[in-house]
């Protein structure tokens, strides 16, 4: 220790994400109070998150749904939702690669949530950072598309560990792509054995019906 300087060790033992986690807990109790099932939808850019929502909406009823769209820039996705008559708020993160609990609480203030049973939060397309930030959601649906490859669960385990449901999209492309469903499921069963997997394609919109049923069932579970 230098003679003229005084060293001091300050013990903190504090959660760096306390701000986010506190706000997420507030969001969660708000959703519970309003009996809204909040669903965080994550996945790579282009995996089909918005298309999945478009397929899902008719089966849950547009008036029961509100959507928060998260993107770096623009309002393409919120327009897609509004054109279906769904209450929507667009968040532009201006470069941030994920949504956080504060952005969600501000978005909620802008939404009329009367009669809402399901709030879908479409996160920024990214397989890493959204894992890190609790938004206060009840469940996390991971969208993974066939063209991304069967190895994604093995390469990005925290995302797949954190999921409550996985939707494999674009399965109409299976005949044209070297994607082994068996290997994909092997990877998943190693890192998240309990994860329910659903296969969908926008070419056959009815493929989303089992997902809609599972979400409805989840909304009736005690939270």
């Amino acid at each position, binding site marked *: 220790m*230098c003679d*003229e*300087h*005084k*060293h*001091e*060790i*300050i*013990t*903190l*033992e*504090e*959660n*760096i*994400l*306390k*701000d*986010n986690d506190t706000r997420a807990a507030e969001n969660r109790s708000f959703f519970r109070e309003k009996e809204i099932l909040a669903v965080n939808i994550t996945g790579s850019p282009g995996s089909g998150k918005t298309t999945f929502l478009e397929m899902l909406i008719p089966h849950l009823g547009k008036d029961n749904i509100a959507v928060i769209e998260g993107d770096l820039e623009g309002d393409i996705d919120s327009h897609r939702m509004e054109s279906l008559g769904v209450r929507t708020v667009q968040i532009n993160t201006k470069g*941030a*690669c*994920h949504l*956080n609990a504060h952005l969600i609480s501000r978005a909620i203030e802008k939404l009329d949530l009367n009669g809402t049973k399901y709030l879908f939060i479409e996160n920024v397309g990214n397989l*890493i*950072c959204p*894992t*890190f*930030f609790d938004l206060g959601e009840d469940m996390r649906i991971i969208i993974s598309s066939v063209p991304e490859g069967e190895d994604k669960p093995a390469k990005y*385990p*925290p995302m797949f*560990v*954190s999921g409550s449901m996985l939707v494999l999209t674009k399965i109409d492309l299976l005949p044209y792509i070297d994607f082994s469903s068996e290997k994909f499921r092997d990877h998943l*069963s*190693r*890192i*998240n*054995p*309990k994860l329910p997997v659903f296969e969908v394609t926008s070419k056959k919109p009815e493929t989303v019906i089992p997902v809609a049923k599972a979400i409805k069932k989840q909304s009736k579970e005690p939270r």
Partner: protein
Amino acid sequence: MHETGIARRLLSVIYPMLDGKKQVTRIKLRFGELKMVQKDLLETAFSTLTRGDKRFKDTILEIEIKPVRGKCNTCQSEFDIKNFEMRCPFCGETSIDITGGYESEIVEMEVVEDV
């Protein structure tokens, strides 16, 4: 690149505690493996955000990574989960609760103060 967000939050915890302190020489942090924090990216983000601020001129970031922890719902054993393999090493069952690996904590910091 969530390291920038982490560095920003880290600084928001530290700033209010620097009253009268001259320099932060060391910050000890603890992250769970599931948080996927890269030390070099966090250092880059931290030094970028504190550029020109003399209090953080030579700050060393000490990072401890905590393994993912699991508890088997069948035999109740607790263990480190390696390579994200969600299987009990004692009984082989796959019904496991994750009990650790999500930490993101500032443990302590060392400051130097002019006497």
